[in-house]
C-alpha cells in the first residue's frame, strides 16, 4: 500500500466512523475523484460500521407509525416538495 492509499484508508475510516472533519471530507472526495477504486475502501468501512449499528436487538415498532409516515408523504406529494421531487426524478 503506497502513502496515498494509506492516507485514503485513514480518511475513509474517519468518514465511516463519523469522525472526519470538513477538511478530511474534502480531501477524501479529492482522492476518490483521482482514484475511483478507493470507493471500495469507503464502502467496506461503511458496511462494517452499518453492520455494527444494526446489531442491536430489533424492537417492535408502534402499530400506527407506518400509517403516519404514509400520510405525511401523501401530504408532501400534493405540495411544492412533491412537485419538485417529480421534476428532479424526471430530469
Amino acid at each position: 500500500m503506497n502513502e496515498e492509499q494509506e492516507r485514503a484508508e485513514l480518511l475513509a475510516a474517519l468518514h465511516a466512523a463519523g469522525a472526519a472533519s470538513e477538511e478530511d471530507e474534502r480531501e477524501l472526495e479529492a482522492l476518490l475523484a483521482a482514484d475511483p477504486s478507493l470507493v471500495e475502501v469507503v464502502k467496506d468501512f461503511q458496511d462494517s460500521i452499518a453492520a455494527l449499528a444494526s446489531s442491536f436487538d430489533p424492537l417492535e415498532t408502534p402499530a400506527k407509525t407506518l400509517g403516519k409516515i404514509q400520510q405525511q408523504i401523501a401530504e408532501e406529494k400534493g405540495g411544492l416538495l412533491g412537485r419538485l421531487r417529480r421534476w428532479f426524478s424526471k430530469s
Partner: protein
Amino acid sequence: MTEFRSKDPEELVAAMAAGDSGRALSAFYAQYASTVLALLTKMLGSPAEAEELLQEVFVELWRRAPQFDRTRGSVVAWVITVARSRALDALRARKRRHGDRQFQYQEGDALMTERKRPDVMASSTRWHQALRQAFQRLDAEQRAVLELSYFQGMSHGQIADTLQLPVGTVKSRILAGMRSLRNMLPIIHRAIKA
C-alpha cells in the same frame, strides 16, 4: 394492499424513488423499521423520543430515495447513515435545550449495556449476537473511540479533548478499530453459515 412482489432492498428503494409510497414503502419499512428503532433507542436512550423520530427517519428515506447510490454502499448502510444522522440532530437539539454539559465518557455508553426490554423481538439473530460479541472483543481503546465518534457524533478533535489524547492517537485508534471490524465481518459470516 397486496404485498410488494420483491424484497430486494435496491428494488424497493428504486420503487420509492419512482414515487411508490404504498407497497414498496411498506415492504421497506417492514424490513428496516425494527432495526432503525433499536439504533435510535440506543443512541437517544429514550424509547418515546426514538419512536417519534422513527417517523421522521422513514419520511426522509423516502424523500432521499432518488439520491441513493449503490456504488457508495449498501441499502442497510444508507438506512443506518440517515437514522444515525437524525439521532445526532436530536442529541444536539437536546444539548442546546439543556446546556452543553461536559460529556463524561464511560465505557459501554452506547453498545455494551444491553438492557432487556419487553418489546425486544424474538428475531434477534445469531448474526446480531455475533456482531455484538465481535465488538466487545475489540481492543477497549478502539471501542471507546468508535463509540464516541459513531454513536455520540464527536469529531476526532472532540474525542481527543474528552479522552485527553493527542489527535493522532485518536485517528490511529479509529483506523485500527475500523480495520478490525472490517476483518471480523467475513469471519462471522462464515461462522454463522457453518
